[in-house]
């Protein structure tokens, strides 16, 4: 994997409420792709498809319901009233991985659970993304010395965004989601299918 390289320093967080029409477009996720399309010459039509599909994908990321440990409780908190992940159109937690686009690996991946997490990931249809939430999923975290814990979920499945925290507070979580949206914004259509040059 890894057809997309992103310069992390260029990505900034949206901090103030969008006022102008251009800012609103940027907030919803369309404008960056437009700019990217202008840069890529000779692919105007293809890029329009890019824009629309990327916009659709980043606006409707449906996570799969797979809480593993402590972070799962914060995952519930993210979906609940105070933080409301529904604002990004992500409140449809699908129990069936077939209908999901995004997997939050929320919690410790033990060695016994690892093949199942991997299977869950493989059951998801392309294009799909993974966010490793919390120290345990990123590197094994507190339990990385333990005999029963996998040292990071990226050993078994590709991870797009890591969110440190133990567990990360919901705002940190939403920040991670925004980072993923930025990443999808800059992807080419079919990047996940290996069609990108």
């Amino acid at each position, binding site marked *: 994997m890894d057809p997309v390289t992103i310069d992390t320093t260029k990505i900034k967080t949206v901090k103030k409420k969008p006022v102008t029409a251009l800012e609103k477009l940027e907030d919803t996720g369309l404008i960056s792709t437009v700019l990217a399309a202008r840069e890529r010459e000779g692919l105007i039509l293809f890029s329009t498809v890019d824009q629309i599909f990327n916009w659709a994908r980043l606006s409707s990321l449906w996570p799969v319901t797979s809480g593993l440990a402590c972070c799962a409780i914060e995952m519930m908190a993210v979906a609940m009233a105070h933080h409301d992940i529904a604002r990004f159109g992500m409140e449809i937690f699908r129990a069936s991985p077939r209908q999901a686009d995004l997997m939050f690996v929320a919690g410790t991946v033990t*060695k016994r659970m690892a*093949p199942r997490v991997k299977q869950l990931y493989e059951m998801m249809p392309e294009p799909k993304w993974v966010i490793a939430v919390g120290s345990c999923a990123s590197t094994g975290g507190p339990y990385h010395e333990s*005999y029963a814990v996998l040292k990071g979920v*990226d050993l078994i499945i590709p991870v797009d965004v890591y969110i440190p925290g133990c567990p990360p507070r919901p705002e940190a979580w939403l920040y991670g989601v925004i980072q993923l949206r930025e990443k999808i914004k800059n992807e080419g259509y079919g990047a996940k299918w290996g069609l990108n040059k």
Partner: protein
Amino acid sequence: MNPAEELKQKLPAAVVSTGMQLNKPMAVIKKEELLNAAKKVKEMGFDHLSVITGTDYNDHFEVVYNFFSYEKKQNLVLKVITDHDNPEVDSLTSLWKGADWLERETYDLVGIKFTGHPNLIRILLPDGWVGHPLRKDYDMNTEQFVTMGEGGEDVVSTDGGNLLRRK
């Protein structure tokens, strides 16, 4: 009256010694007499088996039972000492159903066998895991991986080749 002393009076043959586990009365029981002693303990009104645990002391194992009586509001601790090579004690599942999983867990993590247990298999770790982690001589350096076999059962091996993405 101290329930440990009471137990010693009733079953002098079973109790090796009495003492205190900090503030709880404790009786050290002979390995062979455990089931008898437990029966007597249950008759004495200790209906709540709080915890079963085993500890590895390098040369011997200790199995500790904590009881509580809902009527008398009393605690009692039973302790059994077994040898290190073949740790085996009687199962208490016939008296307390709650002992079932606690004994399985002790078997799983410490490796003490409970004779008479109806279903003594690993509970927390998958079948086929090598070693009992809470023993002091457990090998922490060899990584063991679990993969999925037919029908969703766990298969343990030291080779995680088909699980890991990269070495």
